[in-house]
């Protein structure tokens, strides 16, 4: 279940304000702990990193509040640029900044970053190896009833096709902090896919030893493996608990980095648990599921397999929690998909 289930409408109204401004004395907002909001920690974490690293700069396209990069702006005003509603110019200008030795962290909605600015990311950032870090927030269908213009359900497919680009999805605030820290010295451009700042906590502390490309096994099980990423990690873990109650023990792999993919983790999942379900808040075309399918096919591993995500369609209008439930991307939905996959006999 997503964190704002039960009051989904209210949850979307403060999209552009940030919730901490309305938090109560206990530091919670509408039942959500402020510490568990990924996009909201980026500005603070980057400001901390920038205290000791003069190369770090941050940019937004009129979304400083929605991404909380405003927290960076307050502490490092000379190294923060609000570029207005001009995303293409922002991404390319970030590449120009990188060419003078800076490490720009550039935030905008994932739909605009990956889809509007695909060419600027590919040609100006990835191809010349510019260390631009794209903070693609409000990814997937997390913008709910804002609709398809504001959804990014194709971004992983697009970004995965770009050579020399690291593509990763943050599941929660602590993992995002680890990713931001690890990204500083990473060569080349990085696409970081973030939620809308409401993802419930999975990692109780900033994971130590985080490395891009190294998947994390968060739950052991021998009956099947869920390979998931970003926003779907939390409901996948919850689904595993539901399945366990029914006697099905599922391994859960946090494939936070979609590219480069941790191939050994995929092979181990197939050979050791005998069935694989990928779960992602993304089209089933071109994203994590496709990446895993390619590995399984390349290695002739014919295990029961299912790509779970959004079918080849535009999703309905609705609040995020309702959408997750409708498309079976909540814990009960994921659990049912795993049961179906395991019950399907090999062709």
């Amino acid at each position, binding site marked *: 279940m997503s964190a704002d289930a039960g009051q989904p409408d209210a949850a979307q109204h403060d999209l552009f304000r940030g919730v901490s401004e309305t938090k109560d004395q206990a530091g919670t907002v509408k039942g959500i702990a402020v510490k568990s909001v990924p996009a909201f920690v980026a500005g603070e974490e980057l400001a901390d990193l920038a205290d000791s690293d003069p190369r770090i700069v941050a940019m937004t396209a009129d979304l400083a509040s929605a991404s909380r990069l405003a927290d960076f702006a307050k502490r490092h005003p000379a190294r923060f640029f609000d570029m207005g509603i001009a995303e*293409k*110019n922002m991404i390319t200008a970030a590449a120009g900044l990188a060419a003078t030795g800076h490490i720009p962290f550039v935030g905008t909605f994932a739909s605009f970053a990956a889809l509007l600015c695909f060419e*600027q990311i590919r040609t100006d950032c990835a191809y010349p190896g510019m260390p631009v870090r794209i903070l693609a927030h409000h990814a997937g269908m997390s913008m709910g009833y804002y609709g398809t213009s504001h959804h990014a359900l194709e971004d992983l497919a697009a970004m995965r096709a770009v050579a020399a680009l690291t593509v990763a999805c943050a599941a929660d605030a602590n993992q995002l902090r680890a990713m931001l820290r690890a990204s500083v010295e990473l060569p080349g451009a990085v696409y970081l896919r973030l939620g809308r700042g409401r993802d419930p906590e999975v990692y109780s502390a900033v994971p130590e030893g985080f490395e891009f490309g190294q998947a994390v096994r968060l739950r052991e099980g021998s009956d099947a493996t869920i390979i998931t990423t970003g926003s779907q990690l939390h409901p996948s873990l919850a689904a595993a608990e539901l399945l366990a109650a029914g006697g099905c023990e599922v391994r859960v792999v946090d494939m936070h980095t979609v590219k480069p993919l941790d191939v050994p983790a995929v092979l181990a999942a197939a050979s050791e648990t005998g069935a694989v379900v990928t779960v992602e808040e993304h089209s089933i075309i071109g994203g994590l599921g496709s990446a895993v399918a390619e590995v399984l096919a390349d290695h002739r591993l014919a295990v029961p397999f299912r790509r779970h995500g959004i079918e080849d369609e535009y999703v309905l209008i609705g609040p995020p929690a309702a959408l997750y439930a409708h498309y079976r991307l909540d814990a009960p939905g994921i659990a049912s998909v795993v049961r179906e996959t395991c019950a399907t006999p090999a062709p």
Partner: protein
Amino acid sequence: MKTTATQTASAADLGRLADRALFIRLETLRLTRIAGAGHYSGTFSAAELLAALYYHQLRIDPARPDWPDRDRFVLSKGHAAIGLYPVLADLGYFDPADLDSYTRLGSPFGDHPDMRKIAGIDFSSGSLGHGLSVGLGMALGGRIQRRDFRVYVMVGDGELAEGQIWEAAMAASHFGLGSLVCIVDRNQLCIDGPTEEVMSVEPLDERFAAFGWEVQRIDGHDLAAILGAFAQLGPPGPGRPQVIIADTVKGKGVSRMELDVNWHVGNLGPDDYEAVRAELIAGAAR
């Protein structure tokens, strides 16, 4: 806004620059023959501008292509790279013999420039409309680092139809980037015809002025006028970004190519090659 050429260079200096402009055109002929086809005319229009930039204006050191305080040059109209490569070789960024591999399999030198393969290229280009944003970012970097380098971006006139150019133009004046200099090679043609027929860009000076830029407009083949425009640039630092609109002739120097859209990309046969070469040399001697 029309700039009068001021006496900033001696006749000998101007003669030297004219010789380098001829060198750029002759090398463009030679390299195009290796490739089998090339962007002659959009390079010929920029020959005097490139010569004036690299042999007079830019603060660069070919021995230190990564010198942090160097002036930057972004060739947003990347298809004129064939005229830039010989300049970089001539200045010592790399061995001129390397150019013999131009466009051949695995060569560093393609139709569009690659900063990761060629010393002296400050940014890769090729997709039109991006270069001014690159320059904007470089100028922001210079401001953060308190360096006094300038960033020169050469754009074509056809690419001014790209919206991103005007996003960058808006941002450059918003941020007060006096160190950013845009040079428009106003050679009148894009691929399908005259810009004013395909997608009109005029009144260009008024448009840039409306975006908050300092505007000069000159004859882009008059080396004295180019140097005069450079001399009138304000100091790098906080201030209005600066544009030099250089009125040029696409295909300049070759009668059969001048203002002929059919020569945007072309290839000369052996006899024509010698005739064009002779025409360029004779034209430069006048």
